[in-house]
């Protein structure tokens, strides 16, 4: 049984902050089939198309029949822990700092044996449930948990290394004027965040839902206009060293594509707000987050973007907006690479049209802002990288994988 994680004590400003180290990163190209699955929280193994045998580790031919037809498919997660050990003197800096570190060998019900990180409640000879998680290098690793719920399960020390649980962490939600921002504040507070800073541009101007933020225990309204470089830098000077999780809820939705607009003024606004706002936030808050990736129980852990799923496939009715979101998606991959040395995860939540005023004319289904907020929390708790929220987003993910040209034609209607 695990002791609950304790709220971190006030940091001694005279002590050196421990710098982040990364667990071993090199992998074979084929092995990134697991990385892809881990990013979405799926559990896959290679399965032979010819004989049906499951294989692990990643291979180029089936060990049962030598077929090259090995595909990554969703696989049964259950196995039995055959043996465990506790590495007390690892040869790698990351693990040496975190020793003792517990691993085990799991015989999967579907065949292969897997070396896995162990949740502290795993018992030799007992069933376990396997998942792929992204470690602090951003690489997929197998993680075995007990089959049932155990007390304080999410507080396991090794599990917490793989995730970005908001419990006891301090979060910056960048836009409190939006409904999604307000719902995110409530969901993160409910998930145990110590403090939620919530950015509001021109805070003297009243806005709907203001009462949900002001005067709430653990919620601090701060001045932030992400599209203004100085505003972002000023706020980072104040609280940059206290932001463990940043949730970028910047939202700037305008209908229209290219030919029915005149000039570039709206397009400029879209880029200013969404893309350059992202740039400003990254430059203001990214460096400190990268430095604080190993800063105790409440180290910096994650950066969350809320993006339109049309970042992946342009929706001409909101064509220029889709393009601004595609720019943000591309930038998020750059940010992911640059935050990776700190072990800070970059998570992208893809949503279909949200049930807000700017999508007023769009027919349902639309995503409830509360569903987006809950998805943020579960992505942080699961340590995911790509999350599709709602039916529209999920459908576009599948159709894009099936046939991107068909999707392109059908989005034109």
């Amino acid at each position, binding site marked *: 049984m695990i002791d609950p994680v304790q709220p971190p004590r006030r940091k001694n400003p005279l002590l050196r902050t421990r710098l982040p180290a990364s667990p071993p990163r090199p992998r074979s190209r084929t092995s990134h089939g697991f990385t892809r699955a881990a990013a979405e929280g799926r559990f896959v193994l290679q399965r032979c198309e010819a004989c049906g045998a499951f294989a692990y*580790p990643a291979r180029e031919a089936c060990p049962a029949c030598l077929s090259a037809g090995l595909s990554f498919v969703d696989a049964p997660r259950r196995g039995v822990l055959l043996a465990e050990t506790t590495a007390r003197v690892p040869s790698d800096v990351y693990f040496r700092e975190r020793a003792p570190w517990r691993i085990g060998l799991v015989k999967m019900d579907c065949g292969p044996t897997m070396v896995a990180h162990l949740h502290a409640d795993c018992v030799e000879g007992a069933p376990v449930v396997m998942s792929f998680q992204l470690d602090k290098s951003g690489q997929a690793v197998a993680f075995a948990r007990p089959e049932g719920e155990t007390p304080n399960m999410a507080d396991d020390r090794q599990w917490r290394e793989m995730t970005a649980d908001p419990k006891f962490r301090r979060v910056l939600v960048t836009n409190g004027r939006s409904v999604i921002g307000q719902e995110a504040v409530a969901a993160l507070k409910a998930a145990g965040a110590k403090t939620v800073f919530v950015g509001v541009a021109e805070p003297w101007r009243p806005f709907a839902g203001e009462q949900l933020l002001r005067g709430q225990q653990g919620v601090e309204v701060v001045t932030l206009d992400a599209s203004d470089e100085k505003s972002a830098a000023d706020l980072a000077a104040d609280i940059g060293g206290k932001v463990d999780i940043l949730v970028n809820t910047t939202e700037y939705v305008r209908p229209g594509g290219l030919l029915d607009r005149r000039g570039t003024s709206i397009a400029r606004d879209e880029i200013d707000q969404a893309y350059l706002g992202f740039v400003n936030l990254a430059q203001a808050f990214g460096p400190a987050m990268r430095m604080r990736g190993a800063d105790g129980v409440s180290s910096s852990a994650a950066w969350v973007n809320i993006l339109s799923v049309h970042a992946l496939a342009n929706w001409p009715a909101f064509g220029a907006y889709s393009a601004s979101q595609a720019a943000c998606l591309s930038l998020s991959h750059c940010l992911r690479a640059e935050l990776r040395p700190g072990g800070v995860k970059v998570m992208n939540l893809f949503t279909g049209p949200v049930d807000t005023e700017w999508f007023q004319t769009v027919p349902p289904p639309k995503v409830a802002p509360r569903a987006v907020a809950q998805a943020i929390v579960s992505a942080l708790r699961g340590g995911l990288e790509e999350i599709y929220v709602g039916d529209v987003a999920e459908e576009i993910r599948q159709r894009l994988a099936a046939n991107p040209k068909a999707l392109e034609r059908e989005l034109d209607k």
Partner: protein
Amino acid sequence: MTNSLRTPYDGIVMAAPVTIPYARYSIESAQWWIGRALSALVARAGIKVSDIDGLCVSSFTMGNDSGIGLTQHFGLCVRWLDTIPLGGASAIAALRKAARAVQAHDADIVACVAGDTNHVDSFRLTLENFSRFNRDAVYPYGAGGANASFALIARNYMRTFGVTREDVGRIAVAQRANALRNPHALMKTPLTIEQYLAARPISDPIHLFDCVMPCAGAEAFLVMRDHTAASLGLPAARLLSTIERHNAFANDPMQVRGGWAMDVGELYAMAGVKPDDLDIVQTYDDYPVITMMQFEDLGFCSKGEGAAFVRQHDLTIDGDFPHNTSGGQLSAGQAGAAGAYLGLVEGLRQVLGEAGPTQVKNAKLGLAAGFGMINYDRGLASGAAIFAGPAR
């Protein structure tokens, strides 16, 4: 026991066992250590470098070199060349290939050499880049290296067969006693079973004295036909039989036996001897539990009786079952791939009567085993050889 269908190693001998004394750390390269071993071979055999017409080399730390680079490096002109990257099974594999080469007259004198250096960070780099499966699916899990992988095997083995740490500790303690008589062993202080049990844990149930000491060093011997040895006036040991097996028992969920178990009948049948006939045994002792597994798989006792076997026998030089007489890797040190050669080279010295302070009285018939390559969850490579000195 069935008769072997394989061609006997008639007239094939091994000579000039040499060891370049180990160093915990070395600023020299692997090539330097291999060069010292070749030089020692030539001096010991009283031959010229140009008499060596076959070369077989094993090393983890040669960088991008393989055997071919070494021919030019050392001024060798050979007509038979091999590089064997089989870790702890390299010596047996090298011997098998060299024996057939000289038997077929593809070569007359083959130098089998293994050497490695140990810079301050080279052991970690070897662990990190050991194999594809290791890099993908083992090293990122705690980076415990071979200690963690063998810990899983040891834990399962010990639980399955009711083996205690004290049982496996007997092996390590006996080897330390042997090492104290080997002036080149890195470990120079006695080890008691109490000290063994009180050692700090490394990766449970592996504790400090279950682990080898990585070091720099080299080992080598020559393979030739008996006529060649006689014409050189070289004392030589006859090769009686060998076995080699890779990826055996792949369907065992965890390793409780090595490939020896698959071929042990052949090993003794080809040699025409029984386990009881052996005067000295040199197992591959990267961990004592693997040695215990070899006592079972090489036919000295049944599976599951390894613990009882070590309780009933004295494994020291003067004991009733002289084993790893130089102290083995556990107490002499593990010089990378030379660790594979350590047992065989010491075994040759024993049956040739050249072992000096570690000499077992009247040692005539010896066995050396190899084991290696934790590619993923188990050691894949195993081998063994039986050989006889001139007195038998």
